[in-house]
């Protein structure tokens, strides 16, 4: 399974984990997405009805924890983190509105099309999430 993140996700995530109250986000994401099979990641609230590629809102860190928005592209067995927000604490809020959901979907599509994405992995101690620019292989390297 390949895991990517949009730049907006990275910014939001890194801003949040600076706050001690949201440090759990790294562990939750590693446990729920980096250590599991692709099919396991397909849970939560599916926001886009019958569509084959699910756009998912997932509760992480328990009820009062955070909400993670991700897109799964089935044929590629790839997931794309698009947004995260906590429910409580200084940066917390209840929900995002439908226009924001539409924007997330539009932005992740543009990011996939332009390759403007970051690969998500974690450190060897499995404590920190790492965002890497996908390696661009030049035609010279292939030849």
């Amino acid at each position, binding site marked *: 399974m390949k895991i990517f993140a949009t730049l907006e996700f990275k910014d939001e995530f890194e801003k949040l984990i600076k706050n001690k109250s949201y440090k759990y986000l790294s562990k939750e994401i590693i446990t729920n997405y980096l250590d599991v099979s692709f099919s396991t990641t397909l849970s939560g609230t599916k926001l886009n009805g019958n569509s084959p590629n699910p756009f998912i809102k997932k509760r992480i860190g328990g009820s009062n924890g955070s909400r993670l928005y991700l897109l799964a*592209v089935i044929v590629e067995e790839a997931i794309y983190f698009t947004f995260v927000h906590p429910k409580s604490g200084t940066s917390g809020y209840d929900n995002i509105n439908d226009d924001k959901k539409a924007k997330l979907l539009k932005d992740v599509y543009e990011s996939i099309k332009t390759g403007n994405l970051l690969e998500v992995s974690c450190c060897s101690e499995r404590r920190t999430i790492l965002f890497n620019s996908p390696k661009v292989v030049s035609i010279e390297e292939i030849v």
Partner: protein
Amino acid sequence: MECLASNINIRDTFSEISRYSYKFTKESQDQIINTFLDQVNNLQKEIRTHREFFDNIVERFEKLTWANDIENDEASLNTLNDIIGITRQLHLKFLKYWIELNKNFKSVAKTEISLLKITLDDLKEATQDLEDVFFNLPKNSDFQEANKKIQSL
């Protein structure tokens, strides 16, 4: 005469204190405390039962959003609309219950009462999500347009 009256008074006072002392045993104290603790336990248990029920409903709502055959089925959509309506009524009813609990029993069931509020907030959110998925987002043209592109990937 005065001395006799005093003696009676002293004896009565002695009897009264003795009776009270006899009644107020360790067992009677324990019984009162145990009855109170039982009631506290019952209240905590009742709150936990409500939370378990609502947690289960939230999970069922999430699973409903993965069903592929609902979107174009009028009867299912009508039932979903009823589910959303009745859950909102239930949420409101429980919010009033929670306000009463928080006002009167916070000192004896603080954690359970706080957790019940979180569960109720979750129920409210899950109900809104259900409405968004089946009734609001299908009418949101920006969302539908972006979703159409996403499905072409």
